[in-house]
């Protein structure tokens, strides 16, 4: 089945298809948070100034890090691939502007560990000269696997936050059909408004990207969802989808309605099974920003080198959204929007619920960065003393995944890594609702993150031990074999000698 641009519109209405989403559902718990979204939506989005230095971490996505294909001193053009994908789950990296590679080495990157990681550093030449691009005008003439290759080569990863390589999620896999393709523009975390602004300003590009994704997936129906606190974006997308069978749905504003599994529940009433993926119930979910990146990669041939991003918080003079080149140092953005270094309490990448504190302002923006939040003492929550759990159960009421946060907490606290997995630790989406409602201020999510990373570390240790055991046993075997061979050789020589001496004696 080939769904062309016109055919998609025609089938949708010729058959008089009724709406896919007839009613909305609810997920368990969630919390209502102060939005703080108006501050950063007052100004239209403009391009950020071209920074002098671009810092490009090789690992900006889930999976294997990319591998540099340029050397220090190389001159690169805008859009040129500077690191290629290594392995299947990986994404290449492209130069966001033209300039010279000045350093390849370990530098601070945006990561909760605060550790350094391999980066390519380039100095821009100010010309911003593009490499040769290869646009594809008729995506509907392209084979889905060809489309996925282009999207992979363009380095596109999920821009909603997780950074999973998009081409993998655009492959339903053998024998699976996609019933509904959902574009996620919910953006439920406070302060962040980059998807909102993208939907207001680039509605057409989102729809084009959605059509390309639909073609790649052979999806039956398409839905774009957003929270009902974004009336401008809703109006813009309604206008952009007029005459098509794409549905635009507003969902109630409650955190974390933008979580993939939560959004699927709200729209369809179906639950993604534990340890399962949305594709297992015939659904694929992508971020609206990813749709724009896909559109630009196919129809303009542009790789992913920039993104919409929010710079906000009480410390920022002019909170706003900017189109930022990947690799731009955070400090450049703070300077552009104006900030007060002396009253800066906390610098957060991401939102206040799921973001993490940055060790400094010298780290760069990466593909998954949706927000820089510069907090003053007033908007950073005061560090309240942690008190013992009183077993009130508020965390379980708030958990959008129906877990038992209290049980998870006890087992994490006791470092019982086996028991905690029995309570489905790995279904936790680390949304932070439980910590938010906890009257004892227990940093619950911190405990879960601790437990998750410890379990992974233990697994790695186990694999390493197994490898060492195999190597050791092989070595022992080899030593035995060599010994036996030496002994055999020795015996043979002895025999030869004795036969010679007996011969001599006989003579």
């Amino acid at each position, binding site marked *: 089945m080939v769904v062309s641009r016109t055919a998609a519109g025609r089938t949708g209405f010729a058959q008089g298809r009724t709406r896919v989403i007839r009613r909305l559902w609810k997920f368990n718990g969630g919390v209502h948070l102060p939005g703080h979204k108006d501050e950063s939506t007052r100004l239209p989005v403009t391009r950020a100034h071209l920074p002098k230095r671009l810092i490009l971490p090789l690992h900006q996505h889930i999976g294997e890090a990319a591998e540099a294909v340029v050397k220090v001193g190389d001159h690169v053009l805008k859009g040129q691939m500077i690191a290629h994908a290594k392995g299947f789950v990986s994404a290449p990296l492209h130069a966001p502007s033209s300039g010279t590679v000045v350093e390849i080495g370990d530098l601070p990157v945006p990561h909760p*560990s605060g550790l350094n990681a391999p980066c390519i550093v380039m100095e821009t030449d100010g010309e911003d000269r593009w490499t040769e691009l290869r646009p594809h005008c008729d995506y509907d003439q392209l084979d889905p696997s060809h489309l996925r290759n282009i999207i992979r080569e363009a380095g596109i990863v999920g821009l909603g936050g997780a950074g999973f390589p998009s081409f993998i999620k655009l492959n339903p896999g053998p024998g699976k059909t996609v019933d509904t393709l959902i574009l996620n523009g919910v953006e439920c975390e406070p302060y962040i408004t980059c998807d909102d602004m993208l939907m207001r300003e680039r509605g057409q590009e989102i729809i084009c990207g959605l059509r390309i994704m639909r073609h790649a997936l052979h999806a039956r129906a398409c839905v774009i969802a957003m929270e009902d606190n974004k009336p401008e974006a809703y109006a813009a997308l309604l206008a952009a989808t007029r005459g098509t069978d794409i549905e635009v749905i507003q969902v109630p504003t409650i955190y974390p309605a933008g979580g993939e599994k939560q959004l699927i529940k709200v729209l369809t009433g179906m639950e993604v099974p534990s340890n399962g993926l949305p594709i297992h119930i015939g659904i694929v979910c992508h971020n609206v920003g990813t749709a724009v990146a896909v559109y630009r990669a196919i129809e303009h041939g542009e790789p992913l080198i920039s993104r919409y991003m929010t710079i906000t918080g009480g410390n920022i003079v002019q909170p706003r959204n900017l189109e930022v080149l990947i690799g731009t140092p955070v400090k450049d953005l703070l300077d552009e929007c104006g900030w007060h270094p002396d009253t800066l309490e906390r610098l957060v990448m991401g939102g206040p619920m799921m973001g993490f504190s940055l060790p400094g302002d010298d780290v760069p923006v990466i593909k998954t960065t949706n927000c820089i939040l510069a907090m003053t003492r007033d908007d950073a929550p005061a560090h309240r003393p942690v008190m013992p759990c009183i077993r009130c159960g508020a965390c379980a009421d708030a958990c959008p995944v129906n877990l038992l946060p209290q049980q998870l907490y006890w087992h994490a606290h006791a470092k019982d890594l086996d028991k905690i997995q029995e309570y489905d630790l790995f279904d936790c989406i680390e949304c932070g609702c439980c910590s938010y409602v906890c009257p004892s201020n227990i940093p619950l999510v911190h405990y879960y993150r601790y437990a998750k990373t410890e379990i992974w570390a233990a697994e790695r240790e186990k694999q390493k031990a197994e490898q060492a055991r195999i190597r050791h046993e092989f*070595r022992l075997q080899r030593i035995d074999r060599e010994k036996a061979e030496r002994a055999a050789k020795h015996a043979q020589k002895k025999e030869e000698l004795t036969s010679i001496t007996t011969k001599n004696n006989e003579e």
Partner: protein
Amino acid sequence: MLAAIITLGLLAAVFGLVLGYAAIRFKVEGDPLADKINAILPQTQCGQCGYPGCRPYAEAIAKGEADINQCAPGGEAGIVKLADLLGRDPKPLSEAHGQVKPKMLAVIDEATCIGCTLCIQACPVDAILGAAKQLHTVIASECTGCELCVAPCPVDCITMEPVKKNIREWTWSFPEPPQEEPVLPKGAHG
């Protein structure tokens, strides 16, 4: 009376035959307990426990010849797991068998190495690459940090360095535990 003795005697004979047959038919090769213990040990093959490798130590524990607290690289977590498996009480690491240290990696100073191959012969996991009169180097991903290569080196060119932390293997710290007593503002106590 006689009937009872004969019956019991016959039963004993039959069961004896059945058990004897089962012992041959369902014989388990190797020592399953030693295997289980070996799976818990860290496979460093360092010999700090006093046995020439993890497997011999596991067999010694299984036979009851060695105690469970002799493995320094396994650390406290390893001792707890062994105690769980064997139904014993965990105990602190015996001081005679080393201390718990962060994970180390052997590094050969390539300027000093004379290519004598002694470290290659000492390495229990073949993690050192080289040949006679050729420069030796450590395969970092295979090195278990057992330190067995350090002593044989005639020119002391091998040092043990702590394994560098990288982002992929970084783990979140354990959160500060809650305070036992609720903290009241000063002067709140009547």
